């Protein structure tokens, strides 16, 4: 019985040299981005915790950090940076685009002012 046809069969044998090298590099990228994201998160907390930074700057700033965080999450942890994710990229970004326009329009339409 040919097992190569069963997509859910467990893998057998050990990986090739090239794969191993790739995996190692992948692991390093994951750790680096993890540390960086923890850094961003603590920056956000600090921005709000200190009294030095005015909230007029603080709020847009942490929103910006949040945006960076989301993109990094998608690209590094959820592998949208990898090859063969063209459709995923296209659809996520067009979805975000449509959602952004929709939300912006809604806020205008539901606002107190009528245009």
């Amino acid at each position, binding site marked *: 019985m*040919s097992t190569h*046809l*069963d997509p859910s069969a467990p893998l057998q044998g050990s990986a090739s040299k090239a794969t191993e090298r790739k995996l190692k590099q992948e692991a390093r990228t994951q750790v680096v981005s993890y540390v960086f994201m923890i850094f961003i998160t603590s920056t956000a907390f600090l921005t709000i915790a200190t009294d030095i930074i005015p909230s007029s700057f603080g709020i847009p700033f942490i929103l910006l950090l949040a945006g960076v965080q989301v993109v990094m999450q998608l690209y590094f942890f959820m592998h949208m940076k990898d090859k063969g994710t063209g459709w995923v990229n296209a659809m996520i970004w067009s979805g975000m685009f449509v959602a952004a*326009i*929709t939300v912006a329009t809604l806020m205008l339409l*539901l606002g107190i002012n009528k245009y």
Partner: protein
Amino acid sequence: MSNAKAQPKSVLWDWLTTVDHKKIGIMYMVAGLFFFALGGLEAILMRIQLMFPEFSFLGYQTYNEVLTMHGTTMIFLAAMPLLFGFMNFIVPLQIGARDVAFPFLNSLGFWLFLFGGLLLNVSWFTGGAPDAAWTAYVPLSSDSPGHGVDYYVLGLQVSGAGTLIGGINFLVTIINMRAPGMSMMRMPLFTWSTFVTSMLILFAFPALTIGLLLLMLDRIFGGAFFDVAAGGNVVIWQHLFWIFGHPEVYILILPAFGMFSEIIATFAKKRLFGYSAMVFATLIIGFLGFMVWAHHMFTVGMGPVANAIFAVATMAIAVPTGIKIFNWLLTLWGGRIKFTVANLFALAFIPSFTMGGVTGVMLATSAANYQFHDTYFVVAHFHYVIIGGVVFGIFAGMFYWWPKMFGYRLDETLGKIFFWLFLIGFHLTFFVQHFLGLMGMPRRVASFLDGQGLNEMNLISTIGAFMMGVAFIILVITLIVSRKNTDNVDDPWDGRTLEWATPSPVPEYNFAQTPLVRELDALWHEKYEGDGKMKAAEPLDDIHMPNGSILPIFISLGLTVASFGLIYSTHVITVIGLLITFGAMFVRSIKEDHGYHIPVSEIKRGKGER
């Protein structure tokens, strides 16, 4: 556990547990036809009530319930499942795949839809169906007494989850499962339109889910999202509903466009004119579909600037739609046209749908809309696009693909009687409604007064509705009496696309060897450039198949039980229902199941070799 052979099963158990896209497609069709008949019956009841002025056939409350259930049933439980049936059956065949990407989820999607639909209809027997129309505007819906609207909220929530799952499944299937050589720009248009439709489902249904959730919180848990006295806002519901609702109409019409593209090309014996323009137009329509929702809300008071923007955006959709119409006409131009029933529906679609498009542009003129809004003019408009577009598409698709799906050809003579009766009945019913609307007859009223000049046209409209009813009965008879036509079913129309390269009925693995696609209209290319058979892209080998599962029924059943708990605020039952659902999901997660293999010897036997 990996079995070498499939376990023998009883027929019923086989259908209940199947994960085969073809059987699921057939179940969608059967359920869809059932709900179509139900919705049609409700339509006839309404038309009898409106046959004469101040008639008392249905009570006013009953009329509202019948009206609501008619719209809801036709959109969510008839048109969409029938289209899903075709998509399920045909798309994997058209792209040369053995199944969809997630067969288990596919069956879950079907059962969620079915349980949701049945849940909605249980309301008839428990003290009244929903009565706030299919749009369920608040505060009408949030204040509606009884449990009718609760059934609406939860029934749609359950079946909507199924639709979302189905849509995601098609997206992954079309992106990942295409046969070698089947590039995106070689996909048949039905597959393309399924792809764009699935994107619309993915992006539009969440808005409905949120709207229904808010309505449920307001009605069942004392929320105040739509309670003006408590600082809520009623207009938010309309926005959420139409952010979903307008893409929804494109979810319905795009697959029909895809079908017509295939049918017209096949029966004109010509390659589809302007293939890439057709693909591009489909994408543009899909995108613009999200930019126009507020054209349903011109009279709400958004202000002239917002109205103008949405009016222009709406009219812009007429451009890609027009491109499509002209491409169909140019495909027909100079073709050797065959007037089969499938093609008759396609040909009748072009003028009928265009009429609906014209009234659509009229409605999009925001200043004029104040006159048309909420009159029978609107009823006429959306029935011209929905019946003249979607329903004609479904009927055309039935006559076209029936031999592939069910292994027999539908009788052409009976089919033509059905076609003409339905076509005339349809125009008789809805053409006069334009004028009823212009004369001021409001929509969603259970009666009208004598002496306002509305009597004759309402009577004509009802007569047309009866004709459509009779036509539908003839269709059902056709489906039954045609069963002897089992000859010439593999490729009866001299087809162009891959599904016609399979034998009818299609074996469960679809293709003994994955085909190699060399051109757009893959089969046609082989017929004229090759030896008439698809080239194989792989050696003949054992085929891996997924095992069936009963779990989708339990997952859906659990949600249905939980819905009853929510409707009657008995949260013990809600918890039990959710336990069933999550328990079934848990079983699915921990149980290892690697499917089984069909051995080469059996595949050879299927091909008539030994």
